[in-house]
C-alpha cells in the first residue's frame, strides 16, 4: 500500500508538472490516471525498496539525498573538467585500465544506482556487471599506478556505502 501511495504521489507530481497547470480538471484526470498507473506499476517499480520507516525517517532521507545529489553534481562537473582538459590538451595522454570491483551490495536497486555514480564521476565507466560474482567491470581513464588504483577503489567503496545508506534501510 505504501508503495502504491508513493507511486501515486510521484506520478501525480509528474502529471501536474507535465500538464503545466493546476486546476480541477487536471487534478481529476490526474487522480484517475495515476491511480490506475500506480495500481499497475507499483509492485514492479519498487520491488526491492523497503519503506519501513516513519515519516520522520523519510524526511531525513530526502534531506540526505539532496546532499548526496549536490555532491554528485559537483563530481560530475569535476570529472567533466578532467576529461575536457584531455580533449583540448595538445598532446592528450591516457593510461586506461579495466578493473573488476567486487561489491558488497545485495540490493539490485543499489547496484543500479551506484553504476550511475561510477559512470558520471571518478573518471570511471561501468562497463559490465557480473551478477554471479557481484563484480563491476570498470574502465578507468587515467590511472597511472596500482597504488592509485587501490586508493580509488577504496574511495569507491566508501561512496558505495553512502549510497547503500540512503536507499537501503537498515531494518
Amino acid at each position, binding site marked *: 500500500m505504501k508503495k502504491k501511495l508513493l507511486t501515486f504521489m510521484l506520478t501525480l507530481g509528474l502529471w501536474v508538472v507535465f500538464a503545466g497547470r493546476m486546476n480541477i480538471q487536471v487534478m481529476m484526470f490526474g487522480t484517475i490516471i495515476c491511480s490506475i498507473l500506480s495500481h499497475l506499476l507499483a509492485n514492479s517499480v519498487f520491488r526491492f525498496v523497503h519503506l519501513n520507516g516513519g515519516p520522520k525517517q523519510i524526511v531525513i532521507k530526502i534531506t540526505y539525498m539532496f546532499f548526496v545529489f549536490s555532491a554528485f553534481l559537483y563530481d560530475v*562537473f569535476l570529472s567533466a573538467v578532467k*576529461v575536457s582538459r584531455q580533449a583540448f590538451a595538445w598532446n592528450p595522454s591516457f593510461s586506461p585500465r579495466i578493473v573488476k570491483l567486487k561489491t558488497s551490495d545485495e540490493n539490485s536497486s543499489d547496484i543500479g544506482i551506484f553504476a550511475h555514480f561510477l*559512470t558520471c564521476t571518478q573518471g570511471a565507466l561501468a*562497463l559490465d556487471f557480473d551478477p554471479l560474482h557481484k563484480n563491476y567491470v570498470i*574502465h578507468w*581513464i587515467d590511472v597511472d599506478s596500482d597504488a592509485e588504483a587501490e586508493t580509488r577503489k577504496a574511495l569507491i567503496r566508501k561512496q558505495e556505502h553512502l549510497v547503500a545508506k540512503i536507499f537501503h534501510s537498515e531494518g
Partner: protein
Amino acid sequence: MIDFLPILRQIVVYVFFLTGSYFLLSTAVGMIRFPDLYTRLHASAKCLMAGGISILMGCIVLEGIGFVSLKLIILLLFLLITNPIANHVIACLDHSNTMTPNPISKNRS
C-alpha cells in the same frame, strides 16, 4: 536603485550557457580526438552530461520559478538517469563483443 536580481540572473545564465557550450564542444572534440571507444565513452558520459546539465540549468534560471522550470528539472533528471545507462549499454555491447580487455587501452598516445 538598480534592480540587482535580473542582472545577477542574467550573469548566471550566461555562465551556465558558456560552461555548457564549452563542455559540449569538448565532447565533440573528445569524440574526434580520443583514441579508442572507451575513452570516447568517457567524453560522452561526462562532458556531455555536464554540458547538458549546464544548458538545462541555464534554462531553468532563465525561466525562473514555474511549471516550465519543473518540466526542465524533470528533463534534467531524465538525462541524468538515461545518459549513463546509454553509455553503459554501449560499453556493454562492445565489452561483450570482444570479451577481452581492450588491447588498445594499453597504448599511450
